[in-house]
């Protein structure tokens, strides 16, 4: 069975030092490295991920967010995930990443 992997679409929106990335697709081992490569975090103090159209976040995705967290921490910035579906949220909760999420 061959199925084309779901691509990850990233829309970046700069508002001063705030970068809002709207993600669509899966965060899997294939797409997560691309996410890290494509986002330039220079000068960014407030990083927001709109997760509205994210279907799955696998551990590779979690690792990506862990990396972003560490970068933002280094720049004294903040990282926030918004519009996370309940199912995806559970992944974050299971793994102790709920601090990244917008409080419910």
């Amino acid at each position, binding site marked *: *069975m061959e*199925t084309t992997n779901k691509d990850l679409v990233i829309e970046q929106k700069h508002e001063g030092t705030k970068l809002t990335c709207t993600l669509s697709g899966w965060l899997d*081992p294939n797409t997560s490295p691309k996410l890290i490569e494509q986002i330039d975090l220079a000068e960014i103090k407030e990083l927001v991920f709109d997760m509205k159209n994210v279907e799955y976040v696998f551990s590779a995705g979690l690792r990506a967010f862990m990396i972003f967290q560490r970068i933002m921490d280094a720049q004294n910035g903040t990282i926030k995930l918004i519009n996370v579906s309940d199912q995806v949220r559970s*992944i974050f909760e299971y793994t*102790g990443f709920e601090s990244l999420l917008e409080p419910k």
Partner: protein
Amino acid sequence: MLKSWFRKHSLNFKLNISILTCVCLGFFGLITFISQYAEPIIQSQSEHNAKQTVDSYIADITFLVSDTERIVLNTKNTLDQLSSTDMESLLVVLNSAIKTGSNSTLTFTNAWVYIFQPNNVIKGNLYISTKENGETYFKSEKVSNFYDRFPWFKEVPKKEKIYWSEPYKDKTSGQVVVTCLVPFKFKDTGDFSGLVALTVDLSRIQESINHFSYYKSGKLLLLSRTGLYVTHPNPNIALKKTIFDLADELNLDQLAYVGMELAKGKSGQIEIDHSSVISGQAIFFYAPIKKLGWGFCLVYSKKEFLRPIHHFQIIVLLAFCAGAVLLFFLISHICRKSTDQLLTLSSLATQYGNGDFTENFKDNPSSSDINVIANALTSMKENLLNYIEKERKTASDQQRNESELEIAHSIQKSALSEQYPQHEAFDISTLMIPAKQIGGDFYDFFFINENRFAFVIADVSGKGIPAALFMMKAQTLIKNACKNNRDLASAIHLANNELCEGNESCMFVTAFIAVVDLISGNMNFVNAGHTIPLFYTNDKYRFLNPQKNIVLGAKENAEFVAEKISLTSGDRVFIYTDGVTEAENEESDFYGEKRLEHVLQKISSSPTRNLHNVLQDIKKFTKTAPQSDDIAMLEFVYNGFKTGSIVFAADLKNLAGMINFLKGEMNKHNLSEAAQFAMISAAEEIFSNIALYAYKSEENGTIKIKTFTKDDKFYASFSDSGKPYNPLAKKDPDIKQDIKKREVGGLGVFLAKKLTDDISYSYKKGLNILTIGISLHK
């Protein structure tokens, strides 16, 4: 043919034909017999009569002849004393001779003495005394030729013997006469002197004979010695022809025969075809007058002498005809009377049959048989009226019962599921043979949801509408309770309580209820006082030993215990009602559980055929005994839920394919969205791990994924032939630790553990097998 012809006609016709035919045959037989028998009798009687008649005439003539001969002899004796010269004395003698005749029944026409010449007898003197009109004349004459004077004598007699002449007509009187003579001799002459003669008048005898009648046309004929007719109705024959002449003329040998017989002095009777006297067949009775050599013939018509018989026959025939006509009318009358009454009775019977009892049989029965039928009809009518009266009383009840039965029957029928669901995980078949009366057996099967299937068999106590309604109620309650409660025991508990509510008629139902999870094969069941089900597994049917529960509807708030068995592909459950095990044969033996268990072992792959095998076996057992209770059976065959498997190249690019496959498998099992998400998330971690690490140095590595259900869980196993590695042995990451300090790896397996309900690792035959499972009901 005669039979069918006979059958077509009425009794009257048949009776008349039969009786009249028999009577006719008998009658004609009798007539023939009597005629045959009577003819000889009458014939001999007539012969006897003829003989008597003729004998009296013979006696008369014989008397006449004897008298005459006596007188002639006396005269001769007197003359013998005289001398030839005493002529005066001669005259006296002659006169006295004639007178003697006058005094008796005899009449002498004349008396004479012929004295012939001694040398020539032809010549002589004749002294004759003649009687005429009462006066006697005497004269003497000379006779020159005796034969001329007396032509009826052939010769002059010379011997002392009486001679009789042939009959002849007297010249003077014209009467028929006959002369008797005898020679005499005077005392003074040596030889015969002459002849003395008396001529006898036969006219009286002739008259008497002519007036004689016998059988109307019968005639008496007097024949002389030569066969000459002395008397004959035909004057051309009398004294002119002999019997032999007539025999020649008429060509009748029989007549000549009679003449010969008479000449011989014999008597007798013969039949002659025709005669001169009477027409047609005649009977001749003949008898001789011996003294004279003459004879009598009595001729009479055979027809006439047989006339009494004919008369008898005609009279009897007429009497018979009259009798037959009378008989015909009598039979017709009796028949008509009987058949009329029978027809009346039959139309009455038809009326009674149509329910019209207004008329009665009023006639007087024409016979005892009719009386019997009429009485029977009357009593039938009375019985019918009584019966109808009774019937009327119970009719409404019965009608109600009948319609009740019909309603109950249709309720029962409508309640039974008819369409078997088509599902790859199972087959089901049911069989229901209701007994004559409506019982309360029912079966039911339904889906609770897509993967949970329930089947029920039950037996309601009682019969008729109440049972049917209770059955409907029970069926609905059980179905609803099963659909609305995940737990079977509590579903039955609720259904029971509902059934107990308002159950004043104290009805109850025994039931076996089973719910099968088609994916896992788990079967939960409750046996509420029902017959013990049979379970087929490992090639054998055996009875289950279910927990006993109280029947439904009997006790409020009763607790029910649900049990569980696990079905694997090919397992079967056979349930039935007591109509199966308690089917009775003629000896009142029960079919029983042993027979049931035995016959089921001849398993057929089709559950329908299996049920029919059981039914055949029951019928073979009960034979002709009637079915006393409903027979209901149900068999459920679990085919197992199909599992899927797939092989991928161990590459991350196949991630989406793997997820798609898994999604499809999970959709088959109707896993919830959350469960699917969890499974997919866990599977991705495992798949990625294998793809990234299992085949580090090799190419063409594969990952085989297999899905299956077991114990209420959906499983997916991931096999790879990489180096043995148990990811579960790795220590879990500390999720409480600050993200900044946490290790980047190790999250995947941890997540998989967290997301699934079951996760295990094994290494078998060179394969790392990691299996994850999730509850089917999450």
